[in-house]
């Protein structure tokens, strides 16, 4: 094992190497920081935090030397989506309007990771306020997918967690945090060939995460293996009195749930996820995934989720409505950008007109409209009722099956700049991921194959509320059968 390749280790392997004394947390962290520097061109990070990282790595080594290693994540480098507030460290949400914002507090998820000994190496790029499916809406510019197109063209990594997924896919570091409001962990995981999980709403605290749509937002892990995702989620999750929507229930041992045995598992195939115009190779991979699980003793059952086609339009009422309310706090008074005006209202309007990018302005305007007098019942209440219908569909399906299998996204990664003039075409990237957010359910994307251009495609499993354990067990079975071993062009920042 050469020191320059430590950044390519999985969490599980790095854990073993640290425990055996093969290398130190400082060695491991330095390798990741070097890979991040070498990979600057990918634009995965908005801020690198080498001083903090090395300080925490040294503390980890000291704990281990004293026989007090904190657990599986002690000394493991992790990249943090720049939507998590980090004490004293620039936090931007990839928006101009948060220029220079240095939170005076730490988000609960990143605090939990710190307490578990994880080492933050930097804050990753994302779509502005997590609104996007390509990372193209970031004030800090697009992120390059470590995979490239058939003709060498640069591709998007998906979004909104584009920097986090790229850091993991390019082997800059073993794992990263993301957030998923409509697919922002699972869709990029699919487009970049890594594992991404959105836990059940309430599994992770939302405290200190820059809010987008509060009834949908949930933090989750990116990693290169299902086992690693289970380890990282274990370090992120847990009840938090500071978030009244975080679930006051125990966090099970997710890694221990990976038993390798899925005999008798009932897997539902939702008929309505067969979409017109979906590439044949995605349909074929979906069929193959069902066969892989069947071969390991699972029972495959057709199920119906009749309101599936209404999930995306319902989402594009609910999410902008909640965003318009959450983003009201960016007023040029308390933090970030201020653009002066003749009076207070002018100052607000100038600040928000200049500080928000086009997609954020669009969503705040839509949200304001659907919540405004005379339209609230027609749009917002209607969407919340449709959401009840969607939740009922899932509840009924889970009477007969334990997990649902579908593609994660309707397409592979696409070129940087594509779909930018057609918001609805971009929104369709989340057609398979949004329903789980509307119903609060856990979902995981596992890399399962390559398309005709050699680009990764993921399969998604969705489970019952708070049953991430079954999801990890099923995802592991999928992962082993798929044996996904293809590598992107950019590795460890080198390409």
């Amino acid at each position, binding site marked *: 094992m050469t020191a320059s390749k430590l950044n390519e280790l999985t969490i599980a392997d790095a854990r073993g190497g640290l425990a055996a004394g093969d290398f130190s947390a400082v060695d491991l962290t330095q390798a990741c920081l070097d890979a991040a520097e070498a990979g600057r061109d990918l634009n995965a990070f908005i801020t690198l935090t080498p001083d903090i990282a090395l300080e925490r790595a040294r503390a980890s080594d000291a704990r281990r030397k004293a026989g007090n290693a904190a657990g599986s994540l002690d000394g493991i480098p992790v990249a943090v989506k720049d939507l998590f507030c980090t004490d004293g460290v620039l936090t931007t949400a990839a928006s101009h309007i948060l220029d220079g914002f240095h939170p005076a507090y730490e988000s609960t998820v990143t605090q939990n990771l710190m307490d578990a000994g994880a080492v933050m190496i930097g804050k990753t790029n994302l779509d502005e306020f997590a609104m996007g499916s390509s990372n193209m809406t970031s004030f800090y510019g697009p992120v390059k997918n470590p995979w490239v197109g058939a003709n060498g063209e640069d591709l998007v990594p998906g979004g909104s967690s584009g920097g986090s997924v790229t850091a993991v896919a390019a082997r800059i570091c073993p794992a990263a945090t993301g957030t998923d409001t409509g697919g922002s962990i699972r869709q990029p995981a699919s487009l970049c060939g890594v594992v991404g999980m959105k836990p059940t709403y309430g599994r992770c605290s939302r405290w200190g995460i820059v809010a987008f749509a509060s009834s949908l937002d949930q933090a989750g892990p990116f990693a290169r293996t299902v086992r690693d995702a289970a380890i990282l989620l274990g370090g992120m999750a847990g009840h938090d009195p500071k978030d009244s929507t975080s679930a006051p229930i125990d966090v099970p041992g997710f890694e221990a749930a990976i038993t390798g045995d899925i005999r008798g598992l009932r897997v539902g195939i939702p008929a309505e996820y067969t979409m017109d115009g979906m590439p044949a190779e995605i349909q074929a991979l979906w069929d193959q995934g069902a066969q892989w699980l069947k071969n390991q003793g699972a029972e495959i059952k057709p199920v119906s989720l009749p309101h599936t086609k209404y999930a995306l339009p319902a989402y594009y009422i609910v999410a902008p409505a909640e965003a318009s309310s959450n983003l009201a706090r960016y007023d040029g*008074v308390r933090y970030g950008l201020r653009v002066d005006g003749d009076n*207070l209202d002018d100052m607000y309007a100038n600040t928000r007109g200049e500080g928000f990018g086009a997609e954020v302005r669009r969503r705040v*305007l*839509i949200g304001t409209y659907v919540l405004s007098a005379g339209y609230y019942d027609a749009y917002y209440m*209607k969407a919340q*009722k*449709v959401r*009840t219908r969607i939740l009922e569909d899932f509840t009924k399906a889970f009477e007969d099956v334990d997990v649902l299998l579908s593609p994660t996204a309707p397409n592979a990664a696409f070129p940087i700049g594509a779909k930018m003039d057609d918001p*609805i075409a971009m929104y369709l990237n989340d057609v398979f991921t949004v329903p789980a957010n509307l119903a609060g359910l856990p979902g995981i994307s596992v890399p399962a194959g390559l398309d005709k251009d050699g680009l990764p495609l993921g399969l998604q499993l969705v489970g019952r509320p708070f049953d991430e354990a079954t999801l990890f067990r099923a995802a592991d079975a999928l992962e082993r059968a798929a044996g996904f071993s293809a590598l992107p062009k950019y590795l460890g920042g080198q390409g």
Partner: protein
Amino acid sequence: MSLDKEDVRRVAFLARIRVPEDALAPVAQELNNIIDWVEQLAEVDTDGVEPITGVTALTAPMRKDQVTDAGYPNRVVGNAPDRVEDFYAVPKVVD
């Protein structure tokens, strides 16, 4: 329903987002494309359906109404674009 320039002007004011005069019509078109698309929800029969109030079966917890975190005004206002001592400073509101 369809938004015109005046609707966009009104919504932009409610949202406190400056939309330049020459952008009102293009923004109206963008918003109409999205509104037209979400209106397919009208097809769903929601008679007698309650709007969702929460996605998990958990009830909201109660806590004591007490101050648990305070006493560092300098950190609280530390990110303000403009401040006077421990206060946020804003343009004059009352003449």
